[in-house]
């Protein structure tokens, strides 16, 4: 049995991400580490979004809200002098889960455009709420003077350590999503995407499964938010602005919705392209936009779909 092109590409991607700090060490290009820390964190958010969007068919247009909620949980607690990650991170996850529970409970009763609009509206509401809290910086955002503290054995202010923490959490999330979507739970989620009427007819109360899925995705989004706040040492309302939700959707669609690791390709491709193109011209969206359009039109499974469709060249059989 040979490794498929898709599996090999996935392995290579993660090996590359694992080795990146060595390259940075060798070249001294610190910026690359910062860029890729951001990529890894946003990839985590995209992977969590794909759980509901790709596998569950729930077109959430408010996933950036969880980045903001996770981030503000860390920022607000730090502002009040609570810097322990063992408090901050669980609070970030719990707050995101709760928000997802409320949004999901209401939005999952609707379909299609209404679902999109409700998830968007909730995220924008969260945006305006934090914009209005003067104590935590309002519009200007909130500076975090100290990264989450995990004691002496894990120093997040070390950039390499922090990068590996983010990468480990990303890989754990991809694995988690992969297990989830293939489990009984995942079969219900995917069945509900494919044909919800039939799912109900054969005996599944689909609503509760979709809601749990929505909460899991939101919680993981909150984790990405806690990481992003630590990375930027800053959190502001713009973290959860609707265009950020759009970016996450682009990462998912570009990377491919068909696999747990697909959005990681999307996040890397989009953010690296953005970086490279913005160095060439300040009008980089003019190039990036059509590029994305081509991918959506001609590679419906995104990068992951292209990889899945690629076969190794057939080897000629040696004559006997």
């Amino acid at each position, binding site marked *: 049995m040979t490794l498929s092109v898709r599996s090999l590409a996935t392995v290579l991607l993660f090996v590359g991400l694992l080795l990146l700090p060595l390259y940075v060490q060798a070249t001294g290009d610190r910026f690359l580490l910062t860029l890729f820390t951001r990529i890894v964190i946003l990839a985590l958010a995209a992977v969590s979004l794909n759980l509901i969007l790709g596998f569950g068919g729930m077109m959430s247009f408010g996933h950036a809200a969880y980045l903001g909620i996770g981030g503000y949980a860390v920022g607000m607690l730090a502002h009040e002098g609570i810097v322990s990650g063992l408090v901050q991170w669980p609070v970030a996850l719990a707050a995101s889960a709760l928000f997802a529970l409320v949004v999901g409970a209401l939005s999952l009763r609707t379909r299609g455009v209404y679902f999109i609009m409700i998830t968007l509206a909730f995220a924008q509401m969260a945006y305006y709420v934090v914009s209005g809290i003067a104590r935590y910086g309002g519009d200007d955002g909130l500076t975090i003077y100290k990264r989450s503290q995990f004691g002496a054995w894990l120093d997040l202010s070390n950039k390499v350590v922090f990068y590996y923490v983010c990468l480990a959490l990303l890989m754990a999330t991809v694995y988690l999503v992969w297990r989830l979507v293939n489990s009984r739970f995942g079969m219900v989620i995917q069945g509900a995407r494919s044909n919800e009427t039939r799912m109900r007819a054969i*005996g599944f109360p689909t609503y509760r499964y979709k809601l749990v899925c929505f909460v899991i995705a939101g919680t993981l989004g909150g984790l990405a938010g806690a990481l992003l706040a630590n990375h930027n040492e800053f959190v502001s309302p713009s973290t959860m602005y609707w265009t950020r939700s759009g970016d996450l959707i682009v990462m998912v669609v570009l990377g491919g919705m068909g696999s747990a690791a697909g959005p990681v390709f999307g996040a890397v491709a989009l953010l690296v392209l953005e970086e490279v193109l913005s160095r060439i011209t300040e009008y980089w969206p003019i190039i990036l936009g059509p590029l994305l359009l081509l991918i959506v039109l001609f590679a419906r499974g995104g990068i992951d779909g292209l990889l899945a469709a690629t076969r190794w060249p057939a080897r000629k059989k040696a004559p006997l």
Partner: protein
Amino acid sequence: MTALLQVDRLAKRFGGIVATDDLVFEVAEGELHAVIGPNGAGKTTLIAQLSGQLTADSGSIRFAGTDITRVPAWRRSHLGLARSFQITSLFPDLSALDNVALAVQAHAGHSFHFWRKASLETGLRQPARAALEEVGLAHRADARASLLSHGEHRLLELAMALAGDPRLLLLDEPMAGLGPDESARMVDMLRRLKSRYTILLVEHDMEAVFALADRITVLVYGRVIASGAPDAIRADAQVREAYLGEDGDV
């Protein structure tokens, strides 16, 4: 004989159209009860109300002694009501076996199992294989549902309905779109199934209906105009006039 399903003065309107008009009828335990009627008689609307996709405006439905008029579709399935769809309604991206395995899973406790790979669970795969075997689709188990022929889709529909081990099968035109050979095979299949299941069959194929049914109910514009044994229905003047046509040779 006790009635497994009792429908009492059931009514459903869509705007000005009366799809189900104070409908009264019963399905006895063990019988194959056919519902026939011209297009627009309200047969599919009836099935949808019985299985819970549509809620009746008034009237009641009792199943195995329980009032299920307001019970949601998924719970009716757990009470033992299984339906097939007139227009094939499957999970096109999944294999035939996965389709049936999902139907098995629906009746194998809750699905809040997050870790173990569902496709490796023999508790789901085995009964699913058996259901495919039952309808003669075992050889197509691993084919994607979207790649099956129309005839195979009809059989897969049936296998999914059987997978939950139902007390009452609601079959909505299982012969729809089948060629003569396939129809004949479906009739054989239903003949075998009727010894084990109570079946409510909605069907256009008169030959099939008269060959299979223990009792026939004739619907016209949402009303029952006749109900009885096949011979009685064949002889009923009102049925001949209203539905089968004056010179209908059944």
